[in-house]
Protein backbone atom coordinates (compact mmCIF):
# COMPACT_ATOMS: atom_id res chain seq x y z
CA UNK A 1 0.00 0.00 0.00
CA UNK A 2 1.14 3.52 -0.68
CA UNK A 3 2.37 5.03 2.52
CA UNK A 4 1.48 8.68 2.15
CA UNK A 5 1.34 10.59 5.38
CA UNK A 6 -1.62 12.63 6.56
CA UNK A 7 -0.29 15.92 5.30
CA UNK A 8 0.49 14.54 1.86
CA UNK A 9 -3.01 13.13 1.63
CA UNK A 10 -4.49 16.43 2.69
CA UNK A 11 -2.63 18.33 -0.04
CA UNK A 12 -3.48 15.61 -2.55
CA UNK A 13 -7.18 15.66 -1.73
CA UNK A 14 -7.43 19.45 -1.35
CA UNK A 15 -4.64 20.90 -3.38
CA UNK A 16 -4.09 24.65 -2.87
CA UNK A 17 -3.61 27.07 -5.74
CA UNK A 18 -4.58 24.81 -8.59
CA UNK A 19 -4.99 26.57 -11.92
CA UNK A 20 -3.19 28.90 -14.23
CA UNK A 21 -2.64 32.64 -14.31
CA UNK A 22 -3.65 34.18 -17.59
CA UNK A 23 -1.17 37.04 -17.48
CA UNK A 24 1.54 35.27 -15.49
CA UNK A 25 4.82 37.08 -14.95
CA UNK A 26 6.69 33.83 -15.14
CA UNK A 27 5.95 30.25 -16.15
CA UNK A 28 7.99 27.21 -15.30
CA UNK A 29 7.46 23.75 -16.70
CA UNK A 30 9.28 20.57 -15.73
CA UNK A 31 8.99 16.88 -16.41
CA UNK A 32 6.98 15.23 -19.12
CA UNK A 33 4.31 12.58 -19.23
CA UNK A 34 6.79 9.96 -20.45
CA UNK A 35 8.55 9.88 -17.12
CA UNK A 36 5.30 10.08 -15.23
CA UNK A 37 5.05 13.58 -13.89
CA UNK A 38 4.72 17.03 -15.37
CA UNK A 39 4.22 20.33 -13.57
CA UNK A 40 3.63 23.88 -14.71
CA UNK A 41 3.96 26.75 -12.26
CA UNK A 42 2.57 30.23 -12.87
CA UNK A 43 3.66 33.23 -10.80
CA UNK A 44 2.66 36.84 -10.34
CA UNK A 45 5.38 39.05 -8.90
CA UNK A 46 4.83 42.31 -7.01
CA UNK A 47 7.57 44.24 -5.19
CA UNK A 48 9.96 41.37 -5.75
CA UNK A 49 7.59 39.11 -3.92
CA UNK A 50 5.46 36.22 -5.15
CA UNK A 51 2.06 37.77 -5.11
CA UNK A 52 0.35 34.76 -6.58
CA UNK A 53 1.41 31.21 -7.39
CA UNK A 54 -0.63 28.66 -9.26
CA UNK A 55 0.11 25.29 -10.76
CA UNK A 56 -1.13 22.52 -12.93
CA UNK A 57 0.14 19.03 -12.44
CA UNK A 58 -0.05 15.74 -14.28
CA UNK A 59 1.21 13.10 -11.94
CA UNK A 60 0.89 10.86 -8.96
CA UNK A 61 -0.39 11.66 -5.51
CA UNK A 62 3.02 12.83 -4.36
CA UNK A 63 3.45 15.09 -7.40
CA UNK A 64 0.14 16.78 -6.74
CA UNK A 65 0.76 17.19 -3.02
CA UNK A 66 4.26 18.52 -3.66
CA UNK A 67 2.95 21.07 -6.17
CA UNK A 68 0.35 22.23 -3.72
CA UNK A 69 2.85 22.50 -0.88
CA UNK A 70 5.41 24.34 -3.00
CA UNK A 71 2.79 26.84 -4.09
CA UNK A 72 1.78 27.43 -0.51
CA UNK A 73 5.35 27.74 0.71
CA UNK A 74 6.25 30.14 -2.09
CA UNK A 75 3.33 32.51 -1.89
CA UNK A 76 4.31 35.81 -0.29
CA UNK A 77 7.99 35.01 -0.24
CA UNK A 78 10.60 37.21 -1.92
CA UNK A 79 12.09 35.76 -5.07
CA UNK A 80 15.36 35.07 -3.27
CA UNK A 81 13.60 33.30 -0.45
CA UNK A 82 11.52 31.30 -2.91
CA UNK A 83 14.63 30.25 -4.79
CA UNK A 84 15.86 28.74 -1.56
CA UNK A 85 12.91 26.38 -1.30
CA UNK A 86 14.61 23.04 -1.71
CA UNK A 87 13.22 19.63 -2.40
CA UNK A 88 14.34 18.66 1.05
CA UNK A 89 12.35 21.44 2.71
CA UNK A 90 9.28 20.54 0.63
CA UNK A 91 9.45 16.90 1.68
CA UNK A 92 9.91 17.98 5.26
CA UNK A 93 6.97 20.34 5.19
CA UNK A 94 4.88 17.45 3.88
CA UNK A 95 5.93 15.34 6.83
CA UNK A 96 8.05 13.08 4.65
CA UNK A 97 7.51 11.17 1.43
CA UNK A 98 7.96 7.50 0.60
CA UNK A 99 11.52 6.94 -0.57
CA UNK A 100 10.58 6.10 -4.13
CA UNK A 101 8.52 9.29 -4.33
CA UNK A 102 11.19 11.68 -3.13
CA UNK A 103 12.04 12.65 -6.70
CA UNK A 104 8.63 14.29 -6.94
CA UNK A 105 9.71 16.91 -4.42
CA UNK A 106 12.57 17.79 -6.77
CA UNK A 107 10.13 18.47 -9.52
CA UNK A 108 8.02 20.87 -7.50
CA UNK A 109 10.90 23.05 -6.39
CA UNK A 110 12.41 22.92 -9.86
CA UNK A 111 9.22 24.08 -11.52
CA UNK A 112 8.89 27.00 -9.15
CA UNK A 113 12.49 28.01 -9.67
CA UNK A 114 12.03 27.79 -13.40
CA UNK A 115 9.05 30.08 -13.21
CA UNK A 116 11.09 32.61 -11.22
CA UNK A 117 13.98 32.33 -13.66
CA UNK A 118 11.55 32.81 -16.50
CA UNK A 119 10.35 35.99 -14.81
CA UNK A 120 13.90 37.21 -14.21
CA UNK A 121 14.84 36.45 -17.80
CA UNK A 122 11.91 38.52 -19.00
CA UNK A 123 12.88 41.40 -16.73
CA UNK A 124 16.42 41.33 -18.12
CA UNK A 125 15.11 41.39 -21.65
CA UNK A 126 12.92 44.35 -20.79
CA UNK A 127 15.94 46.39 -19.74
Amino acid at each position, binding site marked *: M*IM*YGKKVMDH*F*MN*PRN*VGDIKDADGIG*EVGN*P*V*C*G*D*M*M*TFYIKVKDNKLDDVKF*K*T*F*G*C*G*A*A*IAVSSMVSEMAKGKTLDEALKISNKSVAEELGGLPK*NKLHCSNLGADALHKAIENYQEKQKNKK
Partner: protein
Amino acid sequence: MTEEKIFFDNASTTRVDDRVFDYMEPYFKINYGNPSSLHDFGGPPKEALDKAREHAAGLIGAKEEEIYFTSCGTESNNFALWGLARASKDRGNHIISSRVEHLSIINPLKEFEKEGWRVTLVPVDKYGFVNPEDIKKEINKDTVLISIIHANNEVGTIQRIKEISDIAKEKNILFHSDGAAAAGIIPVDVNKLGVDSYTFTSQQMYGPKGAAALYVRKGVRIKPLLLGGIQESGRRAGTENVPAIAGFGKACEIAADEMDKNITYISKLRDNLIEGIKSRVKNVKLNGHPTKRTPGNVHMSFEFIEGESILLFLNLEGIATASGSSCASQALKSSHVLLAMGLPPTIAQGSVLFSLGKYNTQKEVERVVEVLPPIIDRLRKMSPLYKE
Protein backbone atom coordinates in the same frame (compact mmCIF):
# COMPACT_ATOMS: atom_id res chain seq x y z
CA MET B 1 -15.85 4.80 4.87
CA THR B 2 -19.56 4.27 4.97
CA GLU B 3 -20.07 2.11 1.90
CA GLU B 4 -18.74 -1.40 1.57
CA LYS B 5 -15.29 -1.57 0.05
CA ILE B 6 -15.15 -2.69 -3.55
CA PHE B 7 -12.38 -5.02 -4.69
CA PHE B 8 -11.83 -4.49 -8.41
CA ASP B 9 -8.27 -5.79 -8.32
CA ASN B 10 -8.83 -9.51 -8.81
CA ALA B 11 -5.91 -9.66 -11.23
CA SER B 12 -3.51 -9.02 -8.37
CA THR B 13 -5.00 -11.70 -6.13
CA THR B 14 -8.40 -13.03 -5.13
CA ARG B 15 -10.32 -13.55 -1.95
CA VAL B 16 -10.19 -17.17 -0.81
CA ASP B 17 -13.49 -18.95 -1.44
CA ASP B 18 -15.23 -19.99 1.80
CA ARG B 19 -15.40 -23.58 0.60
CA VAL B 20 -11.69 -23.54 -0.12
CA PHE B 21 -10.84 -22.19 3.30
CA ASP B 22 -13.07 -24.71 5.06
CA TYR B 23 -11.44 -27.47 3.08
CA MET B 24 -7.88 -26.47 3.91
CA GLU B 25 -8.43 -25.60 7.55
CA PRO B 26 -7.93 -29.11 9.03
CA TYR B 27 -4.44 -29.33 7.52
CA PHE B 28 -3.01 -26.82 9.95
CA LYS B 29 -3.80 -28.29 13.32
CA ILE B 30 -5.31 -31.72 12.79
CA ASN B 31 -3.86 -33.27 9.65
CA TYR B 32 -0.61 -31.41 10.04
CA GLY B 33 1.68 -34.33 9.27
CA ASN B 34 4.32 -34.49 6.60
CA PRO B 35 3.04 -36.33 3.50
CA SER B 36 6.38 -38.13 3.21
CA SER B 37 6.01 -39.72 6.63
CA LEU B 38 5.42 -43.45 6.82
CA HIS B 39 3.13 -43.28 9.83
CA ASP B 40 -0.57 -42.49 10.00
CA PHE B 41 -0.03 -38.75 10.37
CA GLY B 42 1.37 -38.85 6.85
CA GLY B 43 -1.84 -40.32 5.45
CA PRO B 44 -4.35 -37.46 5.26
CA PRO B 45 -1.78 -34.95 3.95
CA LYS B 46 -0.68 -37.45 1.32
CA GLU B 47 -4.28 -38.03 0.30
CA ALA B 48 -4.83 -34.28 0.18
CA LEU B 49 -1.94 -33.92 -2.24
CA ASP B 50 -3.27 -36.73 -4.40
CA LYS B 51 -6.72 -35.21 -4.49
CA ALA B 52 -5.34 -31.75 -5.24
CA ARG B 53 -3.28 -33.18 -8.06
CA GLU B 54 -6.37 -34.82 -9.46
CA HIS B 55 -8.32 -31.56 -9.46
CA ALA B 56 -5.44 -29.45 -10.72
CA ALA B 57 -4.92 -31.90 -13.57
CA GLY B 58 -8.65 -31.99 -14.20
CA LEU B 59 -8.90 -28.23 -14.56
CA ILE B 60 -6.47 -28.14 -17.48
CA GLY B 61 -7.06 -31.55 -19.05
CA ALA B 62 -3.76 -33.01 -17.87
CA LYS B 63 -2.81 -36.30 -16.27
CA GLU B 64 -2.10 -36.30 -12.55
CA GLU B 65 1.51 -37.29 -12.98
CA GLU B 66 2.04 -34.25 -15.19
CA ILE B 67 1.35 -31.79 -12.35
CA TYR B 68 4.15 -30.45 -10.15
CA PHE B 69 3.18 -28.22 -7.27
CA THR B 70 5.26 -25.12 -6.59
CA SER B 71 4.95 -22.12 -4.30
CA CYS B 72 3.80 -19.46 -6.79
CA GLY B 73 3.40 -18.55 -10.44
CA THR B 74 6.83 -16.99 -10.43
CA GLU B 75 8.41 -20.23 -9.28
CA SER B 76 6.51 -22.21 -11.92
CA ASN B 77 7.71 -19.86 -14.64
CA ASN B 78 11.31 -19.84 -13.41
CA PHE B 79 11.21 -23.62 -13.09
CA ALA B 80 9.84 -24.02 -16.63
CA LEU B 81 12.40 -21.73 -18.23
CA TRP B 82 15.49 -22.97 -16.38
CA GLY B 83 14.33 -26.54 -16.26
CA LEU B 84 13.45 -26.90 -19.92
CA ALA B 85 16.29 -24.79 -21.28
CA ARG B 86 18.98 -26.49 -19.20
CA ALA B 87 17.68 -29.92 -20.12
CA SER B 88 17.97 -28.93 -23.79
CA LYS B 89 21.17 -26.95 -23.82
CA ASP B 90 23.02 -29.53 -25.86
CA ARG B 91 20.59 -28.76 -28.69
CA GLY B 92 20.95 -24.99 -28.81
CA ASN B 93 20.99 -21.76 -26.87
CA HIS B 94 18.18 -19.65 -28.29
CA ILE B 95 14.87 -18.83 -26.61
CA ILE B 96 11.91 -16.96 -28.09
CA SER B 97 9.38 -15.14 -25.98
CA SER B 98 7.30 -11.97 -26.30
CA ARG B 99 7.31 -8.40 -25.10
CA VAL B 100 4.10 -8.84 -23.12
CA GLU B 101 5.19 -11.58 -20.74
CA HIS B 102 4.93 -11.29 -16.99
CA LEU B 103 8.12 -10.17 -15.24
CA SER B 104 8.57 -13.71 -13.94
CA ILE B 105 9.36 -14.64 -17.56
CA ILE B 106 11.05 -11.42 -18.71
CA ASN B 107 13.50 -11.13 -15.83
CA PRO B 108 14.75 -14.73 -15.86
CA LEU B 109 15.29 -14.31 -19.60
CA LYS B 110 17.52 -11.31 -18.92
CA GLU B 111 19.56 -13.58 -16.66
CA PHE B 112 19.70 -16.19 -19.42
CA GLU B 113 21.28 -13.59 -21.67
CA LYS B 114 23.96 -12.91 -19.08
CA GLU B 115 24.72 -16.62 -19.05
CA GLY B 116 25.27 -16.75 -22.78
CA TRP B 117 21.82 -17.65 -24.07
CA ARG B 118 20.31 -15.66 -26.90
CA VAL B 119 16.81 -14.38 -26.29
CA THR B 120 14.38 -12.92 -28.81
CA LEU B 121 11.26 -11.12 -27.61
CA VAL B 122 8.78 -10.84 -30.45
CA PRO B 123 6.66 -7.67 -30.68
CA VAL B 124 2.87 -7.50 -30.38
CA ASP B 125 0.20 -5.54 -32.22
CA LYS B 126 -1.85 -2.75 -30.68
CA TYR B 127 -4.14 -5.24 -28.97
CA GLY B 128 -1.23 -7.06 -27.45
CA PHE B 129 -1.37 -10.03 -29.83
CA VAL B 130 1.70 -11.98 -30.75
CA ASN B 131 1.67 -12.81 -34.45
CA PRO B 132 2.57 -16.51 -34.78
CA GLU B 133 4.33 -15.64 -38.04
CA ASP B 134 6.71 -13.41 -36.10
CA ILE B 135 7.70 -16.37 -34.01
CA LYS B 136 8.18 -18.54 -37.06
CA LYS B 137 10.51 -15.94 -38.52
CA GLU B 138 12.70 -15.88 -35.44
CA ILE B 139 13.20 -19.62 -35.19
CA ASN B 140 16.65 -20.83 -36.06
CA LYS B 141 18.56 -24.06 -35.61
CA ASP B 142 19.57 -23.08 -32.08
CA THR B 143 16.05 -22.40 -30.85
CA VAL B 144 15.16 -24.81 -28.05
CA LEU B 145 12.33 -23.07 -26.25
CA ILE B 146 9.39 -20.75 -26.90
CA SER B 147 7.47 -19.18 -24.03
CA ILE B 148 4.28 -17.20 -24.61
CA ILE B 149 1.82 -15.95 -22.02
CA HIS B 150 -1.68 -17.38 -22.39
CA ALA B 151 -3.88 -14.56 -21.09
CA ASN B 152 -2.25 -11.26 -20.31
CA ASN B 153 -2.53 -10.24 -16.68
CA GLU B 154 -2.71 -6.53 -17.50
CA VAL B 155 -4.83 -6.10 -20.61
CA GLY B 156 -6.48 -9.52 -20.67
CA THR B 157 -5.52 -10.36 -24.25
CA ILE B 158 -5.78 -14.09 -24.92
CA GLN B 159 -3.06 -15.31 -27.28
CA ARG B 160 -3.49 -17.78 -30.12
CA ILE B 161 -1.55 -20.45 -28.27
CA LYS B 162 -2.60 -23.32 -30.52
CA GLU B 163 -1.23 -21.66 -33.65
CA ILE B 164 2.05 -21.02 -31.88
CA SER B 165 2.32 -24.52 -30.49
CA ASP B 166 1.75 -25.93 -33.97
CA ILE B 167 4.78 -24.02 -35.16
CA ALA B 168 6.83 -25.15 -32.17
CA LYS B 169 5.81 -28.75 -32.70
CA GLU B 170 6.66 -28.64 -36.39
CA LYS B 171 10.14 -27.40 -35.56
CA ASN B 172 10.52 -29.73 -32.58
CA ILE B 173 10.92 -26.85 -30.12
CA LEU B 174 9.66 -26.94 -26.53
CA PHE B 175 6.75 -24.64 -25.81
CA HIS B 176 5.89 -23.17 -22.43
CA SER B 177 2.87 -21.01 -21.71
CA ASP B 178 2.25 -18.87 -18.64
CA GLY B 179 -1.40 -19.45 -17.80
CA ALA B 180 -1.41 -17.71 -14.41
CA ALA B 181 -4.03 -15.24 -15.63
CA ALA B 182 -5.96 -17.82 -17.65
CA ALA B 183 -6.42 -21.13 -15.83
CA GLY B 184 -9.48 -21.19 -13.62
CA ILE B 185 -10.77 -18.12 -15.44
CA ILE B 186 -11.18 -19.33 -19.01
CA PRO B 187 -11.32 -22.95 -20.22
CA VAL B 188 -7.88 -24.48 -20.61
CA ASP B 189 -6.99 -27.81 -22.17
CA VAL B 190 -3.27 -28.35 -22.38
CA ASN B 191 -3.68 -30.95 -25.08
CA LYS B 192 -5.78 -28.70 -27.28
CA LEU B 193 -3.37 -25.84 -26.61
CA GLY B 194 -0.50 -28.17 -27.48
CA VAL B 195 1.85 -26.83 -24.80
CA ASP B 196 4.74 -28.78 -23.28
CA SER B 197 4.52 -26.96 -20.00
CA TYR B 198 2.01 -24.60 -18.44
CA THR B 199 2.00 -22.40 -15.34
CA PHE B 200 -1.09 -21.89 -13.24
CA THR B 201 -1.66 -20.54 -9.79
CA SER B 202 -4.03 -20.73 -6.88
CA GLN B 203 -4.28 -17.12 -5.77
CA GLN B 204 -5.81 -16.04 -9.07
CA MET B 205 -8.75 -18.41 -8.74
CA TYR B 206 -10.02 -17.91 -5.19
CA GLY B 207 -7.48 -20.32 -3.78
CA PRO B 208 -4.90 -19.44 -1.15
CA LYS B 209 -1.56 -17.81 -1.84
CA GLY B 210 1.47 -20.09 -1.63
CA ALA B 211 0.45 -22.76 -4.11
CA ALA B 212 0.81 -22.99 -7.85
CA ALA B 213 1.65 -25.69 -10.34
CA LEU B 214 3.67 -26.42 -13.38
CA TYR B 215 2.20 -28.82 -15.87
CA VAL B 216 4.91 -30.73 -17.72
CA ARG B 217 3.83 -32.99 -20.55
CA LYS B 218 4.72 -36.60 -19.93
CA GLY B 219 8.04 -37.48 -21.52
CA VAL B 220 9.33 -33.91 -21.63
CA ARG B 221 12.72 -33.59 -19.95
CA ILE B 222 12.96 -30.88 -17.34
CA LYS B 223 15.58 -30.21 -14.71
CA PRO B 224 14.42 -29.38 -11.20
CA LEU B 225 14.89 -25.82 -9.97
CA LEU B 226 14.77 -26.67 -6.28
CA LEU B 227 16.95 -29.63 -5.38
CA GLY B 228 16.81 -31.65 -2.19
CA GLY B 229 14.35 -34.37 -1.18
CA ILE B 230 12.37 -36.34 -3.72
CA GLN B 231 9.03 -34.66 -3.23
CA GLU B 232 7.00 -34.14 -6.43
CA SER B 233 8.75 -37.14 -8.04
CA GLY B 234 12.09 -35.44 -7.47
CA ARG B 235 11.18 -32.46 -9.63
CA ARG B 236 10.42 -30.03 -6.81
CA ALA B 237 12.11 -30.59 -3.49
CA GLY B 238 10.87 -29.19 -0.20
CA THR B 239 8.20 -30.14 2.28
CA GLU B 240 4.91 -29.66 0.50
CA ASN B 241 2.74 -26.75 1.61
CA VAL B 242 -0.12 -29.14 2.27
CA PRO B 243 -2.89 -26.73 3.35
CA ALA B 244 -2.23 -24.37 0.45
CA ILE B 245 -1.99 -27.20 -2.07
CA ALA B 246 -5.17 -28.76 -0.69
CA GLY B 247 -6.88 -25.39 -1.02
CA PHE B 248 -5.51 -24.94 -4.52
CA GLY B 249 -6.96 -28.31 -5.49
CA LYS B 250 -10.32 -27.35 -4.10
CA ALA B 251 -10.15 -24.02 -5.94
CA CYS B 252 -9.40 -25.90 -9.18
CA GLU B 253 -12.36 -28.17 -8.61
CA ILE B 254 -14.70 -25.26 -7.99
CA ALA B 255 -13.29 -23.26 -10.89
CA ALA B 256 -13.90 -26.15 -13.27
CA ASP B 257 -17.42 -26.72 -11.96
CA GLU B 258 -18.47 -23.09 -12.10
CA MET B 259 -16.46 -21.88 -15.06
CA ASP B 260 -19.37 -21.26 -17.43
CA LYS B 261 -21.46 -19.57 -14.80
CA ASN B 262 -18.61 -17.32 -13.73
CA ILE B 263 -17.64 -16.38 -17.26
CA THR B 264 -21.19 -15.36 -18.08
CA TYR B 265 -21.64 -13.45 -14.87
CA ILE B 266 -18.29 -11.66 -14.85
CA SER B 267 -18.30 -10.82 -18.57
CA LYS B 268 -21.63 -9.11 -18.12
CA LEU B 269 -20.28 -7.01 -15.26
CA ARG B 270 -17.23 -6.20 -17.34
CA ASP B 271 -19.28 -5.08 -20.32
CA ASN B 272 -21.53 -3.00 -18.10
CA LEU B 273 -18.54 -1.32 -16.52
CA ILE B 274 -16.96 -0.55 -19.88
CA GLU B 275 -20.22 0.83 -21.25
CA GLY B 276 -20.93 2.75 -18.08
CA ILE B 277 -17.57 4.45 -18.06
CA LYS B 278 -17.60 5.17 -21.78
CA SER B 279 -21.02 6.75 -21.57
CA ARG B 280 -20.02 9.07 -18.74
CA VAL B 281 -16.40 9.95 -19.41
CA LYS B 282 -14.95 11.44 -22.56
CA ASN B 283 -11.50 10.69 -23.93
CA VAL B 284 -11.26 7.20 -22.54
CA LYS B 285 -9.85 4.22 -24.35
CA LEU B 286 -10.26 0.53 -23.67
CA ASN B 287 -6.84 -1.10 -23.90
CA GLY B 288 -6.45 -4.63 -25.21
CA HIS B 289 -8.74 -6.39 -27.64
CA PRO B 290 -12.45 -5.45 -27.56
CA THR B 291 -13.59 -9.08 -27.34
CA LYS B 292 -10.63 -11.48 -27.09
CA ARG B 293 -10.00 -10.64 -23.46
CA THR B 294 -10.45 -12.34 -20.13
CA PRO B 295 -13.92 -12.03 -18.64
CA GLY B 296 -13.06 -9.66 -15.79
CA ASN B 297 -10.58 -7.35 -17.48
CA VAL B 298 -11.40 -3.65 -17.88
CA HIS B 299 -8.18 -1.86 -18.70
CA MET B 300 -8.85 1.75 -19.57
CA SER B 301 -6.81 4.84 -20.21
CA PHE B 302 -8.05 8.25 -19.19
CA GLU B 303 -6.33 10.85 -21.29
CA PHE B 304 -4.48 13.84 -19.82
CA ILE B 305 -4.18 12.41 -16.33
CA GLU B 306 -2.07 9.95 -14.45
CA GLY B 307 -3.12 6.55 -13.15
CA GLU B 308 -1.85 6.57 -9.60
CA SER B 309 -3.82 9.68 -8.74
CA ILE B 310 -6.98 8.13 -10.19
CA LEU B 311 -6.28 4.98 -8.21
CA LEU B 312 -5.80 7.00 -5.04
CA PHE B 313 -9.04 8.91 -5.41
CA LEU B 314 -10.87 5.66 -6.15
CA ASN B 315 -9.25 4.18 -3.07
CA LEU B 316 -10.57 7.09 -1.01
CA GLU B 317 -13.99 5.97 -2.19
CA GLY B 318 -13.21 2.43 -1.07
CA ILE B 319 -12.59 1.12 -4.56
CA ALA B 320 -9.48 -0.99 -5.15
CA THR B 321 -7.88 -0.93 -8.61
CA ALA B 322 -4.45 -1.11 -10.23
CA SER B 323 -2.63 1.03 -12.75
CA GLY B 324 0.06 0.51 -15.37
CA SER B 325 1.48 3.97 -14.76
CA SER B 326 5.12 4.28 -13.82
CA CYS B 327 4.23 6.12 -10.62
CA ALA B 328 2.07 3.22 -9.54
CA SER B 329 4.80 0.67 -10.11
CA GLN B 330 7.34 -0.08 -7.45
CA ALA B 331 10.09 -0.06 -10.03
CA LEU B 332 8.83 3.35 -11.27
CA LYS B 333 8.51 2.09 -14.82
CA SER B 334 5.50 2.25 -17.09
CA SER B 335 4.05 -1.13 -17.85
CA HIS B 336 6.21 -2.82 -20.46
CA VAL B 337 3.06 -4.46 -21.75
CA LEU B 338 1.37 -1.16 -22.58
CA LEU B 339 4.53 0.21 -24.16
CA ALA B 340 4.94 -2.96 -26.24
CA MET B 341 1.39 -2.42 -27.51
CA GLY B 342 2.53 0.97 -28.75
CA LEU B 343 0.44 3.05 -26.38
CA PRO B 344 1.72 6.61 -26.28
CA PRO B 345 3.28 7.33 -22.88
CA THR B 346 0.49 9.65 -21.78
CA ILE B 347 -2.08 6.97 -22.46
CA ALA B 348 -0.02 4.36 -20.67
CA GLN B 349 0.39 6.70 -17.71
CA GLY B 350 -3.34 7.30 -17.55
CA SER B 351 -4.33 3.68 -17.35
CA VAL B 352 -6.42 2.02 -14.69
CA LEU B 353 -7.07 -1.70 -14.46
CA PHE B 354 -10.43 -2.70 -13.02
CA SER B 355 -10.26 -6.48 -12.70
CA LEU B 356 -13.56 -8.09 -11.79
CA GLY B 357 -14.22 -11.40 -10.15
CA LYS B 358 -17.00 -13.65 -9.06
CA TYR B 359 -17.56 -11.78 -5.80
CA ASN B 360 -18.25 -8.48 -7.55
CA THR B 361 -21.76 -7.24 -8.20
CA GLN B 362 -23.70 -5.05 -10.58
CA LYS B 363 -24.28 -2.66 -7.71
CA GLU B 364 -20.54 -2.25 -7.34
CA VAL B 365 -20.19 -1.61 -11.05
CA GLU B 366 -22.83 1.06 -10.80
CA ARG B 367 -21.17 2.68 -7.87
CA VAL B 368 -17.85 2.88 -9.72
CA VAL B 369 -19.52 4.31 -12.78
CA GLU B 370 -21.02 6.99 -10.58
CA VAL B 371 -17.95 7.81 -8.53
CA LEU B 372 -15.42 7.82 -11.34
CA PRO B 373 -16.50 10.76 -13.57
CA PRO B 374 -16.02 13.51 -10.96
CA ILE B 375 -12.60 12.09 -10.11
CA ILE B 376 -11.53 12.15 -13.72
CA ASP B 377 -12.94 15.61 -14.10
CA ARG B 378 -11.16 16.93 -11.08
CA LEU B 379 -7.80 15.54 -12.10
CA ARG B 380 -8.17 16.80 -15.63
CA LYS B 381 -8.87 20.29 -14.35
CA MET B 382 -5.56 20.03 -12.54
CA SER B 383 -3.66 18.76 -15.57
CA PRO B 384 -1.45 20.97 -17.74
CA LEU B 385 -2.20 18.66 -20.66
CA TYR B 386 -5.94 19.15 -20.61
CA LYS B 387 -7.70 21.91 -22.49
CA GLU B 388 -11.42 22.11 -22.02
